């Protein structure tokens, strides 16, 4: 039973990490990118590649994951977001990020292969330790660290405050001399790096799998919507709720209904409180 709990928390924290990535990207671009889940996928795949294939030390694997994530975040902003934000049609970014996500998933499939490959052990540990297994504690710890780090970043650093300014009112920020393009790019690189990190930390749980991107995009989004867009605490809560629900539902009803139950949770929350548990009510645009 404890295994179910800890599995739920661990996967939940991975979803929460993706939700955090969504939040950072949304704050500077007002865009929800379909590529968000794929960033973590790349973190896992590149980390596994560096450690298992290139036989590098796990710190270099971590670096590879962070760089891969950050680079893909930058690519998302430069290719799929920047040129599209100026157009009047609001949903072009949905199409461009969907296109980019498909491309990166297929490319990963062609390069890495379509079978999930085991992720290497980072810290020497027996495989029989059950609940204390690092595959659970790495993602949980990493996500909590990320959340705390982001809070400190927003409250204590200059750039963090600039991010928040852009999030409140991008036009005013621009009028104050802030290069919104550069800040947006930075936020995508930062969130990409975090996403890569999260994928790396959770690699032993998820395995290095090219098709992970889409499920993470969806489940990370559910965690985000449940917790409330814009709230990092909400992301953690939403992720935890989703992860635990998934784990217990799998335990009682079997794994086939996982997705159904996850979406069911989302629908219920959206019907009762459309802005999510901790989100802000949106103002109507006329």
């Amino acid at each position, binding site marked *: 039973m404890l295994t179910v709990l800890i599995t739920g928390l661990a996967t939940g924290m991975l979803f929460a990490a993706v939700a955090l990535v969504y939040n950072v990207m949304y704050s500077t671009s007002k865009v929800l990118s379909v590529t968000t889940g794929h960033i973590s996928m790349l973190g896992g795949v590149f980390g596994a590649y560096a450690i298992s294939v290139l036989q590098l030390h796990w710190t270099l694997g971590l670096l590879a994951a962070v760089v891969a994530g950050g680079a893909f975040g930058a690519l998302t902003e430069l*290719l799929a977001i920047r040129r599209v934000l100026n157009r009047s049609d609001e949903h072009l970014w949905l199409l461009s990020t*969907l*296109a980019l996500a*498909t491309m990166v998933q*297929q490319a990963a499939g062609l390069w890495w292969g379509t079978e999930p490959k085991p992720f290497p052990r980072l810290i020497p540990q027996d495989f029989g330790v059950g609940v204390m297994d690092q595959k659970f504690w790495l993602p949980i710890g990493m996500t909590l660290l990320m959340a705390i780090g982001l809070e400190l970043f927003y409250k204590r650093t200059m750039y963090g405050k600039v991010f928040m300014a852009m999030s409140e009112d991008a036009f005013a920020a621009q009028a104050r001399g802030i290069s919104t393009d550069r800040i947006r790019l930075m936020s995508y690189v930062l969130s990409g790096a975090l996403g890569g990190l999260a994928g790396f930390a959770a690699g032993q749980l998820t395995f290095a799998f090219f098709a992970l991107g889409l499920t993470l995009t*969806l489940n990370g989004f559910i965690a985000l919507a449940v917790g409330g867009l814009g709230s990092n605490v909400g992301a953690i809560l939403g992720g935890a709720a989703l992860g635990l629900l998934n784990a217990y539902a799998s335990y009682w009803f079997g794994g086939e209904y*996982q*997705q*159904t139950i996850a979406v069911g949770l989302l629908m219920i929350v959206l019907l009762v409180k459309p802005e999510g548990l901790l989100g802000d009510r949106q103002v109507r645009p006329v």
Partner: protein
Amino acid sequence: MNSLTHTHKAWLLLGGLLIATLPGWAGDQYQLHLASLIAVYWILIAGLNMVVGFTGQLSIGHVGLLCIGSYAFAVLAGKSGWHPALALAASGVLGGVCGLALGLPSLRLPGFYFAMATMAFALIVNDLVLAQVDLTGGGIGLPGPLFPAPFDSPSGFYYLVSLLALGVTWLSWNLGRHMWGRALISIRDNPVAAQSVGVAVFRAKLTVFVFSGVTAGLAGAVFASLQSYITPDTFVFELSLFFFVCIIIGGRGSIIGPFIGTVVLTALPELVAPLAKLGNFFYGLLLLVVVLVVPEGIGRVFDIIRERLRPRVVHREPISPDLARLDRALKYKP
């Protein structure tokens, strides 16, 4: 809205003749199969076009409805022994019902939320199909029943799906060129304005979504028959993306554009071998290029070229109201 000019009619006649006589001039069975596949896809895409191209609802989950239609047909016409025509109709109805079930909670959601909900739907359908082994054969799948003579031969089947495709095309063309078409486009381009002229936005979205469910269900039924065997793996999420790309590339708000998009994108990987290997990467790349360069679709490229060759001079005339006419128009009470 655009009535057919003589040139349009000529092209349509030519196209119609080519389509009608295709089994005669197509090279081999494989090409005939490809033509039938295009027709099957178009049955779904013509309906989806009303949702995506006209109403602007970015649904990326229609492969789930295709899957439901296919399995409904395979089960009803296969295991349950229904007459295939009846099973075909039932698949359409079931597609519509599932469209209603999906649309009701999700059409009120903003764009990204809606897209995610439809994607989740496709994944859920896949999971359920895998899980309900007694009904669907699980991972092993089901055979796709044939239609009775004269539709059991490849050319006979081709005519069946072509007729269905023609029917759906005609329905959607009618919708597009009357008031419904304008209302749907208003929802896509300016929902605030749509409301202000009295369009019941949610109800219209739901109606057109159910329509796309019916066409997807019908497409699923004939798809199962064409493929002769279906498994859950047949209905990957990437197929939804493919439908979507056909519409966006063809241009929103048009019928002929997405049709040409469907023909080209289905045939291209078959004719250009290296593309087949790239598969979905190619569709993703194509979508990205179109969105960045010509978001209104490839049709717009032709317009741009035409503009360069024969620039249209826009005569600016001052506005001069004809008050007598205005007065008469206001007094006219139909």
